[in-house]
């Protein structure tokens, strides 16, 4: 290969995005359209949240990126290396945590990590030890004796332990307690501060919005929207249940921007409200004596419904 051509290719590789898919589609068994024409570009150095309800096509996308399944049409590339024709190159720069992690039950955590490291050819022992310490990983017990959370921690360690340029995580905090979820979030932020990239799938907006820079929303195999996290927060709904000491008039609450009264019985008021109006809502609430206030994040499916309702209203 002439030197100039080689350097051009090297330069392209250096500039190409961490993840790029063009018309990526997957149909299973000729029937189920799991993914339809996905065009996605994830830049280097960002945390990209990939958000969608269960069964929307998140895992299908990720398994296509990892070369575990082949596209029906379209293509995907990691750092410019096509996942189908240059699978070995594309996988070399990635750390992957599967959504449904299965480890070798008979091995201890330490043996499992070492056997996986051998597949890459080398082990960065200090980095492994640092990760194990941070996530408080049980290394010396057989994996079959470990809880789901402890297995998940091993899965996280193997995804990060070779300092990959791209970390692909499918529902990473499943089974982890809140303290560790925070540690994982920190780990993700450190990764991107290092100039590396994170692709994070989740069905929970709350999980993604605190850590992602941009969010792609997928539903029924189609990418609905790619947006900065701030604009999503405006759509982030809360279910609020307020119990007052005496019955109140729901009128002033319903008048707040974006708030809907979903139930008013005696002294209990049920509302759905965007996160952005929480401050105004609490101030109106404060005019009355309050017994209890519960606020819960709505799930993604409801946010979608809200999204589509708005679109419908606009017509």
């Amino acid at each position, binding site marked *: 290969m002439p030197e100039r051509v080689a350097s051009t290719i090297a330069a392209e590789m250096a500039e190409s995005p961490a993840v790029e898919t063009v018309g990526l589609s997957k149909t299973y068994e000729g029937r189920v359209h799991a993914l339809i024409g996905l065009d996605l570009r994830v830049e280097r150095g960002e945390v990209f949240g990939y958000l969608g309800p269960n069964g929307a096509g998140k*895992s299908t996308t990720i*398994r296509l990126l*990892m*070369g*575990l*399944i*082949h596209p029906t049409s379209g293509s995907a590339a990691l750092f410019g290396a096509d996942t189908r024709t240059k699978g*070995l*190159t594309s*996988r*070399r720069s*990635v750390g*992957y945590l*599967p959504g*449904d*992690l*299965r*480890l*070798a039950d008979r091995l201890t955590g330490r043996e499992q990590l070492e056997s*996986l490291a051998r*597949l*890459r050819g080398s082990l960065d022992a200090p980095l492994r030890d640092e990760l194990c310490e941070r996530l408080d990983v049980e290394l010396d017990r057989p994996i079959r004796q470990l809880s789901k959370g402890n297995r998940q921690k091993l*899965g996280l360690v*193997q995804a990060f332990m070779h300092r990959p340029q791209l970390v692909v995580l499918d529902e990473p905090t499943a089974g982890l307690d809140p303290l560790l979820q925070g540690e994982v979030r920190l780990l993700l932020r450190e990764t991107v501060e290092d100039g590396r990239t994170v692709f994070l799938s989740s069905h929970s907006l709350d999980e993604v919005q605190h850590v992602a820079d941009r969010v792609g929303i997928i539903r029924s195999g189609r990418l609905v929207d790619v947006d900065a996290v701030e604009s999503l927060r405006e759509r982030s709904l809360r279910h609020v249940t307020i119990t007052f000491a005496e019955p109140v008039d729901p009128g002033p609450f319903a008048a707040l921007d974006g708030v809907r009264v979903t139930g008013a019985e005696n002294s209990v008021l049920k509302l759905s409200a965007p996160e952005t109006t929480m401050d105004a809502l609490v101030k109106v609430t404060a005019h009355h004596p309050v017994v209890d206030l519960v606020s819960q994040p709505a799930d993604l499916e409801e946010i979608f419904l809200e999204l589509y309702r708005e679109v419908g209203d606009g017509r």
Partner: protein
Amino acid sequence: MAIFPSIESSPEFDKLIENYPDVLKSLFGIAEGSSITSGAGYLDVELFSLMLPLLVLVLAIGSGARTFAGEEDAGRLELVLSYPVRRRDAVLAKGAAVAAEIVLVCAAAGLAIALLDPLVGLDLSFGHLGGAILSLAALGVLHGWTALAVGATAPSRALAIGVPASVAVAGYLVNGLHELAGWLDPFRFLSPFWLLGSSPLQGGIDAWGTFVVFAVSIAVLAAGSLLVERRDLEAP
């Protein structure tokens, strides 16, 4: 094996076996003119015509099916194949492990027989014993690699066990019955049992047949290692 000395001194056993129906004799691989009262003939009837092949086949098919189809079924290939590993290299490495397991078990069986020989006075030819063990290993490797290759080609543990098991049963029956049922005769070349010879322990190894069985094994494994690249891995 310990009762061999009492059989050796009773020629009636040969007469008894001679009077067996031809179907039984040919099914159990009792070759014309072989003698149960010779050490090698005795071992052929007791171990090499059915017992050892059966054990080796069970081990080989189990091992070949477990290592790919079983691992995929358990969802453990998901992580391994997301690493920078070629699928075909994974299949070939698993093939080497399956073969090593079979060879080890066959060698251990051969060694045990060789060590017991002087104790019970079988008076075996070590060359023939080695040949019989090699034929046994060839049989195991063929079926073990078939199980592995089928599992690599299609995501089904049932097929990975069923296909090589059917090959084994068909091969055994064709070899056992082709002399009696004329219409089976043209198919005898397809039976690994026929290719490996009815009794390497008494007559020596069938070098050409054993070579063919190994060559077919390699072709089957190679096919599996190519076809595995084309398909989707099952989700855990």
